[in-house]
């Protein structure tokens, strides 16, 4: 049997319940919004080994370029990759249904007690840690590109234009991505 056929069989074998619970976990662990990507990578790449780091970086990039809450997009794409339409429904349901009910209840409760200092301090500690985890995930997904100077240059530019120049995300996306793709195209043409 070829490697590809074996891999396809493995993909077939992922149960819908596993997709549901995996993205349920991603959703519930992902405190502070953007850290959802940390957990999606941890679970889909490291623990379940459904996809490689490279495929994960692809999916994140695709989702970032589309409108909407992009962690949901990761659930859509991983579900579609593993089991097609039904896989997407399983992954998105796992991501949304139970966490939405819990979140709505907890949120309405928090709105009552938002003034408590201890609660604020705990949330502050979580936010500081989550920020570090997010930085680490971005760096880790950049690792496969570390030997291309152009890739590092564009990563640093994207980082700097948002962090220091405070340009809008949209401006950076549509300004840098075409340039970066053009440079990659030239590199590829020269290598031939």
């Amino acid at each position, binding site marked *: 049997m070829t490697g590809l056929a074996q891999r396809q069989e493995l993909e077939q074998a992922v149960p819908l319940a596993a997709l549901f619970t995996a993205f349920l976990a991603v959703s519930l662990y992902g405190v502070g*919004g953007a850290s959802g990507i940390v957990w999606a990578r941890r679970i889909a790449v490291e623990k379940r080994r459904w996809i490689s780091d490279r495929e994960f970086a692809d999916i994140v990039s695709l989702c*970032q370029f*589309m409108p909407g809450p992009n962690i949901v997009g990761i659930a859509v794409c991983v579900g579609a990759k593993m089991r097609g339409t039904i896989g997407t429904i399983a992954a998105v349901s796992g991501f949304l249904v139970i966490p*939405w009910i819990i979140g709505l209840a907890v949120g309405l409760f928090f709105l009552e007690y938002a003034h408590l200092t201890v609660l604020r301090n705990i949330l502050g500690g979580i936010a*500081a840690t989550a920020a570090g985890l997010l930085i680490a995930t971005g*760096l880790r997904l950049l690792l496969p590109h570390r030997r291309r100077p152009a890739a590092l240059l564009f990563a640093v530019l994207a980082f700097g234009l*948002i962090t220091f120049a405070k340009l809008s*995300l949209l401006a950076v996306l549509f300004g840098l991505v075409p340039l970066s793709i053009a*440079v990659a195209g030239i590199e590829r043409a020269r290598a031939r």
Partner: protein
Amino acid sequence: MTGPSAPLALTAHLALVSSISFGGFPTVLPDVHNFVVGTHGWMTDQDFANIFAIAQSIPGPNMILMMSFVGWKVWGFPGAVASAFATFGPPCTIYFASYRLWNRFRDAPWQQIVRLGLVPVIMGLVVASGTVMARAADTSWPAVALTIGAAAIALATRLSPMWMLLAGAALGGFGLL
């Protein structure tokens, strides 16, 4: 209270902005704020700020939850459900269609070039959003150290992020940050 057309107007507006929220839902928050606070006066500035802070700090799909709190303010539980669907429905359809299209051409040479160009920029943006979060969260030097420590441990080891988040919560809870 608001008229019967309010939930419909809110749902339609959310479905529209979620379809054009390139770069993530936070990019359209200013518009949603104008719509619900300015144009319609369904809630105050303070309400909106509180809802944002809470959505950021609870687990789960937080922008969808944030819009559900807005829907809740306008029309109770049905409003919360309608707002949730309006926020994730259109983007999910777009994600699914574009992933299908992307996957069909996965081995095409042009796609490998797009990938080489796209991924580094996006990862620069991911690191930047971590830094932006850190700027808001790190109000003291111990908090800065916590952020750097968490990033270093996550890069050097495969320790579960949960232990680091618990440690961060404990440090914050004991007032050490």
